[in-house]
């Protein structure tokens, strides 16, 4: 088991994005390999060591044995964990856009907030954000027909607009409130929002959504099916099917809702 601590060095311009898709466990199995890794700071390619201080504790023989720990201001580090297949990444502060993009396995834990496109088009693995996630959490890329296809995303705080857009598989759980058009164009998988959200699952064609809080501006083209008692807490919920406007066959469980009258 190896623990690689990456401490972010102070930067002259801390707002410039750092494109750091090299920060995946498989690149840190061999202790010599990080010397060849590079990141992009604006339009300049830099060696990883110019941006972070690396400390290794232990040895590893496979990516499963590697844990990366990111410390310091990583709020502008983008694409951390992109295409990750195994191992673990722990981010002690906030993380920039596209964290866990197209991730296939392993686990990412973020102790701070995550910027937009967290776990975009994720295929497998687990992402847990202990703070808030910004817009497009667990969504698709521009023009894509499928977003997250597998794995689990859990946000302990709030999530922004377009959360779980194009959700096709796997599960997304938001413990706080979620933004506007959560689950829009959803085609499969499971979406659970414990707080409030608005216009949930608009234009959905498949999958299942649960909202245990209030749905503002409920889309008027969902057909009410029945009232059901859900879960061990026996919550009384209205069950809808839709989105009828899109010939959808999704199922939506909602505790309280309000139409845009």
């Amino acid at each position, binding site marked *: 088991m190896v623990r690689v601590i990456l401490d972010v060095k102070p930067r002259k311009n801390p707002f410039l994005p750092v494109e750091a898709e090299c920060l995946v466990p498989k690149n840190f199995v061999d202790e010599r390999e990080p010397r060849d890794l590079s990141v992009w700071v604006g339009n300049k390619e830099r060696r990883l060591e110019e941006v972070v201080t690396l400390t290794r504790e232990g040895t590893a023989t496979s990516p499963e044995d590697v844990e990366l720990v990111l410390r310091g201001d990583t709020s502008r580090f983008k694409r951390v964990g992109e295409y990750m297949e195994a191992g673990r990444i722990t981010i002690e502060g906030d993380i920039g856009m596209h964290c866990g993009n197209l991730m296939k396995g392993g686990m990412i834990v973020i102790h701070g907030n995550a910027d937009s496109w967290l776990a975009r088009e994720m295929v497998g693995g687990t992402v847990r954000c202990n703070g808030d996630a910004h817009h497009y959490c667990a969504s698709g890329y*521009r023009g894509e027909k499928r977003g997250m296809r597998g794995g689990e995303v859990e946000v302990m705080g709030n999530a922004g607009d377009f959360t779980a857009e194009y959700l096709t598989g796997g599960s997304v759980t938001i413990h706080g409130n979620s933004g506007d058009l959560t689950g829009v164009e959803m085609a499969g998988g499971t979406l659970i929002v414990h707080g409030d959200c608005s216009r949930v699952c608009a234009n959905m064609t498949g999958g299942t959504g649960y909202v245990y809080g209030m749905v503002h501006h409920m889309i008027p083209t969902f057909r009410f099916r029945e009232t059901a008692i859900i879960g061990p807490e026996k919550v009384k919920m209205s069950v809808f099917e839709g989105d*009828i406007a*899109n010939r959808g066959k999704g199922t939506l469980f909602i505790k309280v809702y309000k139409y845009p009258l």
Partner: protein
Amino acid sequence: MLHEDVVCPFCACLCDDLKVETDNGTIVKVDNACDLGNHKFLTDDDHRLKEPIRRTPSGWTSATLQHAIDRTVEILLGADRPLLYGWSGTHGEAQSIGVHMAEVLGGVIDSTTSVCHGPSILAIQEVGHPGCTLGQVKNRADLVVYWGANPIEAHPRHMSRYTTYTDGFFLDRAFKERKVIVVDIRRTQTAEVADEFILIKKGGDYAVLSALRAIVRGKSDMIPATVAGVTKEQLLRIAEMCKKAKFGAFFFGMGITQTQGKYKNIRNAIELVDELNRHTKFTLTPMRGHYNVYGFNEVCTWMTGYPYAVDFCRGMAFYNPGETSAVDILARKECDACLVVASDPAAHFPKDAVRHLGEIPTVQIDPYPNTTTAFCELQIPVAVTGIDAQGTSYRMDGVPIRVKSILNRGYPTDTDILGEIYRRIKEAKRV
């Protein structure tokens, strides 16, 4: 001297039937233009910046063109992430140099699209564009829908050249037979001439579009009595009008692209048009604003594969509006220099974005002093395309039209200035 068939470089209607009279280097008369076009031609010379200016600790001072170009090149070459923004008020040839320049510099290039019809493009990328030329609309459409658009004030000749008040080749009595539906959150001037006006609650476009889609599909049973302030009876009536039309044309403006939900509103509108095409012929066209904003999307797409908000920082094109669009980059302080060409971001961007514009070295290339001038280090005046510069522009329906130069006021064109800056950058980069 009388110039005929002059193209108006104001809005994306690109009216090409103007008659402009010049006398001794001055425009003295304009025929056929709307108030906005008239104003642009007749007052153009009153507001021009006469020479390059630069900011000094004691205020603005004149600069030589050579100094202005030298400093611009120095700023752009020294930046780690330069932003090249604007482009909608100039011709395609200059836009093309801008895209080349962004690639060589490793910068980000974006146009005013990202704050107007960018959401329309995102929607089109998701579900396609059932569009047609304005000529088709003029000659065939017996039903016109303006949704979140107010052409009487923003595109004053749109209705007289292409829709309500014009003859149609395939319509017997176009003026009487053509029906107009207007959808807006307030009773606009355009609403006054509508056969049917839908007063919608702010932010309710998506719900109303979804309801119409379901009704057109014959699934109206679950629709509540009112949707975003619109009664179910009116929705049923509108759906029937659309289905019975022989040829419907749907025009939409920023009232729907820049409200909550943005591109999902447009996607819903496109899917409504798609649904209507199962019953009749229906098309959809964005009411583009700047006269060549569509041109930038065309130029950028054929050069990079993407229509706007393209990031070349890693040497290849990356596109993700929301991340690579100018407002987001400026508000997040992710660029360290800015070149503004043919637009006025300080007049339209949010406060945080404009503040950053003033914190980094910013150069503006524009014929007139404007709000952005106050945030610049340097401004270089150029000729106005359509008055003293010529070039290619794209109308709101994607038709390219050659814009003429009708006089020479002695200014360099955008192509001249950008061409020289690009040449110097290539020289420095040894490209």
